[in-house]
């Protein structure tokens, strides 16, 4: 789809996204004590983040308005608003740990894929966990008064302890982003290598969708690392240029967030909702296939899919005797194609018409001597 197509904005998600962005602005204002604690050097990042926030919110609200997505979104919201919430929340926490943080399902896809993805994902998480509070002015570090050997940390404008410049805590605070950058670069490079070797990925991948995000992530991380290098070993040479480049790559990455592959970060938590939905359905029981009797489809999913098909103008997919096409298990649907073709072919030639032996009663087998 072209960009102009994407700009054909829908009103409801647009309003919701605008509200969400306003709310984000409010949170930023509040956390930075009315903007007083915002770091002027990070203003560009802030604007880009807010804009990306708007884009992501718009995309998110459009997404959950799709009938198929709403089916699951509603279920999760209803669960959260009902008494079930007490049993659901711990489950969701465990699922989120397993699926969002540890990403075990990727490990099952392949260990190499998981390794690359985990490095990349954890690196990003770590990076954003540090930079967002800094950009929003929620966290800041200043020199402690006149003592140039100590640093003072501020949280929401309140002093949150100080530490000496040469302490481990200081080292960690200043280099956690470098660690994140190294993880991201390693993850991206491993992903690129894996993609190069995987014939399937090679055939289906597209530069803009699959490779560009990896390239951008590498660019962000590299420029970030170079900033550190410039400061540490090159006496700040080219620091301004590098800072500009870093800012540029970060802004590009942020602005791309709502459109590209990285949006899955926002979508992925739906997986937790689906797990809850499945568990709910399992306790409700399964519906038996009208073709073979196998219990195959969970009751809630059958109900919701029939409603969904109706919304998608597919309600006509009903057979005689009240059988919906969704009442047939996948195997029976496959058998049905062959049977329908067989029925058509009988006009052409009937494979069975010429087998008379089986139509005749077989005499007592004990007398069937040659």
């Amino acid at each position, binding site marked *: 789809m072209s960009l102009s197509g994407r700009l054909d904005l829908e009103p409801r998600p647009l309003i919701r996204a605008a509200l969400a962005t306003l709310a984000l602005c409010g949170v930023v204002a509040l956390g930075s004590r009315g903007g007083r604690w915002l770091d002027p050097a990070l203003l560009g990042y802030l604007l880009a983040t807010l804009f990306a926030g708007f884009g992501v919110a718009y995309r998110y609200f459009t997404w959950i308005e799709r009938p198929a997505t709403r089916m699951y979104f509603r279920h999760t919201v209803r669960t959260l608003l009902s008494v079930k919430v007490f049993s659901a929340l711990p489950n969701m926490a465990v699922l989120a740990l397993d699926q969002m943080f540890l990403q075990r399902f990727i490990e*099952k896809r392949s260990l*190499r894929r998981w390794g690359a993805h985990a490095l990349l994902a954890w690196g990003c998480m770590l990076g954003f966990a540090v930079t967002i509070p800094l950009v929003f002015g929620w966290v800041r570090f200043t020199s402690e008064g006149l003592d140039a050997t100590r640093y003072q940390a501020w949280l929401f404008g309140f002093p949150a302890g100080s530490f000496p410049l040469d302490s481990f805590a200081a080292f960690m605070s200043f280099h956690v982003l470098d660690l994140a950058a190294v993880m991201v670069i390693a993850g991206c490079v491993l992903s690129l290598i894996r993609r190069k*070797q995987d014939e399937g990925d090679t055939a289906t991948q597209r530069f803009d969708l699959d490779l560009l995000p990896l390239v951008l992530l590498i660019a962000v991380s590299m420029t970030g690392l170079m900033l550190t290098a410039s400061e540490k070993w090159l006496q700040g040479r080219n620091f301004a240029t590098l800072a500009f480049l870093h800012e540029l790559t970060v802004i590009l990455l942020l602005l791309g967030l709502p459109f590209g592959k990285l949006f899955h970060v926002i979508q992925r938590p739906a997986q937790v909702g689906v797990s809850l939905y499945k568990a709910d359905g399992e306790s409700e029981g399964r519906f038996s296939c009208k073709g073979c009797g196998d219990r*195959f489809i969970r009751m809630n999913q059958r109900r919701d899919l029939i409603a969904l098909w109706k919304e998608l103008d597919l309600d006509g997919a009903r057979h005689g005797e009240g059988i919906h096409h969704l009442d047939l*298990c996948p195997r029976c649907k496959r058998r049905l194609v062959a049977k329908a073709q067989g029925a058509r072919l009988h006009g052409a030639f009937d494979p069975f018409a010429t087998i008379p*032996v089986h139509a005749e009663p077989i005499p007592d087998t004990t007398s069937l001597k*040659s």
Partner: protein
Amino acid sequence: MSVLPLSQDQLRAQFGPHLNLAPPGGWLSDPTPDKIVETHCCFCGQQCGIKLKVKDNKVIGFDPWEAFPFNQGKLCPKGVKRYLQGNHPDRLTRAMKRTEHGFEPMDWNEAMDRTAAEIQRIQAAHGKDAFAVLSGVSLTNEKSYLAGKFARLGLQTKNLDYNGRLCMVSAGAGNKKAFGVDRAANSWADIELADVIWVAGSNVAECSPITTDYIWRARDRGALLIVVDPRITPLARTADLVLPLKPGTDSALTNGILHLLHRWNLIDWDFVNEHTSGFEQTLEAVKDCTPEWTSRITGLPVDAIEKAARMWGEARTSFLLHARGIEHQTKGVDNVLGCINMVLATGRIGRPGCGYATITGQGNGQGGREHGHKCDQLPGNRDISNPEHRKYICSVWGCTDEELPGVGQSAQEIMNAIHAGEIKGLLLLCFNPLVSLPDTQFTREALSKLEFFVCLDFFLSESAQHADIVLPSALHEEDEGTSTSAEGRVIKINKAVDCPGDARPDWQIMVELAHRLGRGKYFDHFQKPEDIFNELRVASKGGTADYAGISYAKIEQQMGVFWPCPTDDHPGTPRLFEGGRFFHPDGKARFNPTPYRPPAEVVDDEFPIWLTTGRVVFHYLSGTQTRRIGFLVEQCPHPYLEIHPRLAERYGLQEGDAVEITSRRGAMVLPARVVKSIRPDTVFIPYHWAGALSANRLTGRHLDPVSKIPEFKVSAVRLRKTTKDQFSPELAELQRMAFEARSNQTDMPEQVF
């Protein structure tokens, strides 16, 4: 005494069958090969072209070879997964000796010395012929030829035979009698051009799957298909006419058809008069074979027989295909001759779209039966009792007539002689008689009577478990050579990887052994397979199976060469008998009367049900290879009893129930598979398994008087419903293995269907 040193469980734990489920390094390893080798599939006589992907001296997968003209990339599931026989945990890599504690690895030279010493001891004490060789036709032409020469000149025994005796010999004998030559009369290309296709006793879809497409291509042109089989096989299901006759009544049907062809004057008299002889006597023999008589014998309705005769008789072009269904009988040769009579009477042979062929079953079933691998044969399909033929071969081999033994005993007869104590020593290669010969119990007794038994194999087959010395030999992809496909097309097998450990190609082992036996002068000049092939070319020159003009280079260049190919500039002969020229001295084909006789064993009150046996598409012969490949075992882990619902009802049997099947030879318990696709008076068991699961526990050792093929396809049995706890431990073990193979996949599909 070759009794087993260990329990079956211990042997299984050590030597398998274990399942190979994934390529070397697993599915997620880098699939980029170092090289790609164009070669052929080892599983069946069609010899489909296939490309093997090789990396680090291991076969890691396959690619379809679409340029190869026979199969154009098509493969059956055995072909698709054939590469998994390599890099296998069960693979033998060391010479082994059997001790009280099981098989122990031993030094190669020590193993060879001991083998040579035992051969010499037995032959000194009991005569040269007391040591026998049983071989197989999964071997290349080079190895088959060498096995013949090795037995005759290396061991100086007349007792050499091969497992084609269980496969191709009825067709071979019939073809030689009728045509004077033993080869498919046409390349498969003529199938497509036929207007009617008659398939007798061949489950084409499962046993020669690629042939299915040739038949369908003809049908798409409007050809009619007639299938003769007691079971409704996947191809028969769609046929224009199915003739599900009683097992063992095939020659009655062909006689009945010939009777009708004559009655309705659907005979090509010009062809018959000009190009054949013996028609009068043959007509005389079928004069009483009325449709009513035929119906009574075969159990087919009169109108179906008449319809078949019309369809066959009135066609303009036709192709007749048959396979083991009619050949695995005590009248196997008669059944083949009956089919040929139908072909000759209509004169539809030796022209485009007019043809006849047996569908060779074993990998090199065609080439392996041409060059002296049989007890009565010399290279070039020569006769070992013909003085002229002997003289020529003696001149090629540089031996005297006295040195060349005469006619030996056939495979089953050799086993009988071992059982009787007449043969004391055995060299077995490429053959698993404990699974493939009839009457398993008898075979086991025989093997345990051997004084010395040496076996060449790449896996420890059930038969090899009885051997005193086991020598590791080469897999198909570990050596080069030629083989000859069902069409008569000589093709090139290319080496993809090296033998692991001490393993080496069978031909090297035979050459080395001959050397140790002091017979090196006949063998030492063989340095590579091509040396053997070049001698084979000379030895076959002037014979009917003439390979003289075929070279490795020519095969590669033409994607196979059809024999006869007598000279270097000869392009080969895809279609035989053009212009009505047959291979008998007078150039004519022979009609042969085939008066009907019943099978050796018929049903009676005690054993009231017919039993027939056969293959499934997922396994190959005795299963030594395919029972070790995960995918294939998953699809078909163990044998079963196919039974019609009406017969099942009589015994109160339902799908999966345990049923005990008993014949005069033995009994076994299998799960019932209740299907309408089999005659209600007949049951079927696939034969690829060993021990308690061997269908050949039930079959008898009745032989065709001419071809000496056992009657695998007809036995009388009785059934008894039993309980599932009567299933053998082997069956439970196979079920467990198949289940594990399925569930070991970490990524099981969600269960919705």
